[in-house]
């Protein structure tokens, strides 16, 4: 199983190679991969139809319970078959559609990567595995939408899709983690066994987080703009990702979670409201378009809304209707998208106002378009008709909630019928439109085989309804409902309210189709009057985000070293004072200790050295004063039993003074402090505050008891084990020798860096090199 899911990833590696050798015909070869996966999945149809649920488990990170586990039931199997089956035709289609494109191989790679991710998503049993594949579909979708990355519109669409679906993915991860903590397992198969979570105290956050993931992925209002914008991608992508598979991931998730999170008041409120709003918004926006792909994209948004709405009812018959409609939609929408791409490919435009009379020129494409549109419109004898019948059977009712859902469904379906008919008929009927950019003719086989097969499947599944129900629809509906759904759909409708609703839908849809131009312009005027849309909202959001980032950056990152240092020391002060004052309290000072007179002497020496550095009028005075405070530090070490430190300190300070005197006297700089008095005072206050914070911390540390066990260890074992009497030296060269080695490396690297700095000369402005303007060495001494 893992191999079937991962096979497209391997194939993606070889896709560019295949294109290099076979050109556009590589599509036929690469299509063998999903075909093999389809056959593999098909071998499970019998077992799953018998009610088996199969778990495949490979350990991945077993310490954290993360397994590469896959779960096969009616729901994931149908999705797997759709993804691999439609994938076959998409790869063939892509071979013809992008023939001669210089990144054809890359395109195949992306498509295959997506295919593997999507298979992993629907098969994933472990929630973490599922999430990883979920994110991979977002990323591959980003790559495919932005495939034509030289156009800004494509880049924007790609970023928008990634931001929206990626953001939802984060929420989903949080939801999964909560769910794992609530149920004690992150294997979906076990969560399903445990049953509903509706009573759990964390139910509400889990539900909202999971729905945030599902709604963003499946383009529910208000997250829908990314889906129509994703039409910037080449048409094979639109047909595959953004109608048949990826956008259904959210619907898949909602369906998968239905037995766990469903059947609560919250569930049957949120889902139908968002789904219904999406259905109506999608169809209205779709009516406004003249671009064939955009018309289809908005009806996809609408269909996803319908599916979410139906799943939200938690009614078994409505769920069955959703199942039938989902499969029907994948078939007819994938087909129609390929038809639209074919028309675009052969005529050079997708705007139906510039198309017409293609029927005699592209008869096969026209035939496929008609069959798909009939299924989309819900006309017999297509699977779309059966789906709509069952949907109406499931949702019909007279109480307000049912009535609202029914009205929304009827109106939405009618508008979708009209749009579907417009897409399938307007480019083909009438007289030949003279505004077409290219001389149209039937496309190659690679372009029409997909739509024809998918359209035919829409017919076959309906005609052989009993078989397809037993094999696919019934197991899938059972998996979503969580129990056996005792309902068998029939192609020949019973005379009941569902049929009446169907007839109303068809009548309304035909009415809209005949008044299509008037309706389109009316809807267009309405949206123009509203003016603002969520798509603009996204731009405003991104601009605001960049604006905030810019403000914060300009506040802290001024390019002035001083500002950075001030921020650092303010942060140090703030990090120490509040906890000291409010949590631990200021440390006890105790009586000031007795100091011997020579200790006082050292202190005085140190402080006078420090002050002299600050007030020094000349460079040399400052350097010498620096030496004074350094020697005072050495004396402190000497006084408190650290002769090694004292000697090192003496040496280092002497060297520092000598080097400084050598270097600094070569620079012609003014010694004086250039700060204004006000700034000196503010800097001084900050320095005192930061120093006080550090001093108080130190006093707080020394007022606590000290743990000397390490020192005692070194003291005890220095002579007997390491054979050294100077314990400090033994620590350095024996107990902690590796530290000393590291120290030597640091010194070496610093030396090399100094050497590099001295050697490195930029060649610009050799004549204006400041060194020549510098004062001669040791000018100071002469003064």
């Amino acid at each position, binding site marked *: 199983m893992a191999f079937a899911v991962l096979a497209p990833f391997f194939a993606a590696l070889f896709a560019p190679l295949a294109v290099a050798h076979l050109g556009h015909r590589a599509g036929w070869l690469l299509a063998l991969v999903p075909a093999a996966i389809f056959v593999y999945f098909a071998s499970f149809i019998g077992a799953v139809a018998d009610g088996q649920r199969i778990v495949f488990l490979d350990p991945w990170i077993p310490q954290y319970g993360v397994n590469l586990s896959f779960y096969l039931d009616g729901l994931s199997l149908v999705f797997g078959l759709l993804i691999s089956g439609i994938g076959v035709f998409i790869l063939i289609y892509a071979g013809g559609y992008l023939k001669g494109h210089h990144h054809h191989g890359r395109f195949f790679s992306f498509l295959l990567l997506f295919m593997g991710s999507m298979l992993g998503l629907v098969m994933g049993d472990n929630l973490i595995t599922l999430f990883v594949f979920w994110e991979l579909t977002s990323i591959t979708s980003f790559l495919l939408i932005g495939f034509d990355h030289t156009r800004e519109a494509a880049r924007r669409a790609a970023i928008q899709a990634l931001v929206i679906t990626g953001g939802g993915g984060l929420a989903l991860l949080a939801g999964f983690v909560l769910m794992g903590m609530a149920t004690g397992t992150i294997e979906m198969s076990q969560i399903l066994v445990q049953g509903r979570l509706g009573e759990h105290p964390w139910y509400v956050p889990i539900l909202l987080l999971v729905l945030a993931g599902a709604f963003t992925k499946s383009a529910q209002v208000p997250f829908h703009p990314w889906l129509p914008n994703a039409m910037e991608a080449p048409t094979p992508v639109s047909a595959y990702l953004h109608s048949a598979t990826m956008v259904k991931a959210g619907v898949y998730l909602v369906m998968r979670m239905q037995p766990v999170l469903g059947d609560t008041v919250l569930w049957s409120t949120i889902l139908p409201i968002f789904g219904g709003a999406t259905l109506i918004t999608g169809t209205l926006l779709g009516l406004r378009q003249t671009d064939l792909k955009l018309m289809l994209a908005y009806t996809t948004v609408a269909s996803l809304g319908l599916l979410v709405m139906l799943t939200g009812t938690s009614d078994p018959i409505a769920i069955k209707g959703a199942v039938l409609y989902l499969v029907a939609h994948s078939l007819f929408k994938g087909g129609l998208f390929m038809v639209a791409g074919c028309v675009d490919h052969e005529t050079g435009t997708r705007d139906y106002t510039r198309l017409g009379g293609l029927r005699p020129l592209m008869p096969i494409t026209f035939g496929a378009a008609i069959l798909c549109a009939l299924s989309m419109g819900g006309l017999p004898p297509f699977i779309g008709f059966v789906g709509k019948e069952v949907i109406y059977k499931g949702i019909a009712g007279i109480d307000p909630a049912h009535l609202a859902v029914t009205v929304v469904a009827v109106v939405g379906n009618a508008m979708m019928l009209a749009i579907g008919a417009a897409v399938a008929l307007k480019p083909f009927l009438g007289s030949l439109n003279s505004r077409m950019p290219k001389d149209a003719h039937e496309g190659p086989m690679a372009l029409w085989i997909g739509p024809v097969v998918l359209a035919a499947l829409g017919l076959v599944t309906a005609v052989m309804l009993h078989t397809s129900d037993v094999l696919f629809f019934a197991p899938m509906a059972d998996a979503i409902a969580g129990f056996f759904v005792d309902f068998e759909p029939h192609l020949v409708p019973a005379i009941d309210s569902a049929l009446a609703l169907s007839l109303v839908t068809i009548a309304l849809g035909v009415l809209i189709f005949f008044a299509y131009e008037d309706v389109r312009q009316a809807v267009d005027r309405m949206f123009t009057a509203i003016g603002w849309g969520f798509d603009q909202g996204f731009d405003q959001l991104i601009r605001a985000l960049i604006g905030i980032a810019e403000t914060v950056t300009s506040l802290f*990152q001024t390019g002035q070293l*001083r500002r950075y240092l001030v921020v650092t020391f303010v942060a140090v002060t703030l990090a120490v004072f509040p906890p000291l004052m409010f949590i631990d309290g200021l440390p006890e000072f105790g009586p000031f200790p007795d100091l011997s007179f020579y200790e006082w002497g050292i202190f005085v020496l140190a402080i006078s050295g420090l002050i002299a550095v600050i007030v020094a009028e000349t460079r040399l005075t400052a350097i010498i004063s620096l030496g004074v405070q350094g020697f005072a530090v050495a004396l402190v070490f000497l006084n408190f039993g650290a002769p090694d430190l004292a000697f090192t300190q003496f040496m280092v300070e002497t060297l520092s003074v000598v080097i400084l005197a050598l270097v600094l006297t070569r620079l012609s700089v003014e010694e004086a402090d250039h700060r204004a008095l006000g700034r000196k005072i503010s800097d001084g206050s900050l320095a005192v505050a930061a*120093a006080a914070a550090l001093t108080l911390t130190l006093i707080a540390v020394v007022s606590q008891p000290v743990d000397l066990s390490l020192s005692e260890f070194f*003291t005890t074992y220095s002579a007997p084990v390491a054979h050294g009497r100077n314990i400090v030296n033994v620590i350095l060269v024996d107990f902690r020798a590796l530290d000393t080695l590291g120290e030597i490396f640091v010194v070496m690297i610093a030396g090399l860096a100094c050497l590099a700095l001295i050697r490195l000369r930029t060649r610009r402005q050799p004549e204006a090199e400041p060194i020549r303007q510098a004062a001669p060495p040791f000018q100071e001494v002469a003064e």
Partner: protein
Amino acid sequence: MEVALAILVGCFFALSIYLILSLHTIRILLGIAILTNAVNMSIFTAGRLTREVPPIVPDGSYVPLEATANPLPQALILTAIVISFSLFAFVLVLVYRAYQELGTDATTEMVEAEPPHEPATPRGY
């Protein structure tokens, strides 16, 4: 005793920070030199102080005969002194070379990496 040294350390910190906040790289360099001393003495103080008895095992004995100074912070500081000297040398060369290349030691004028009036972030995609 520790408290007295802690206050001395505080003076070191205050004056080094005051120098580091200056506008000139040379004064900043002096500040860094003092800061390293302040930090080393902090470690020393935090390890507690013992007067005049170095951590040395006398001949003919396996352990020191009386309470000695804490050897652990001394070992740490010995490393730290050497490393801070490397740092000091590196910063010194950096200051020197920056002065040669840029002709100034004022940090306000060293703005080549982050020019004061950078163009606004592009708002497109």
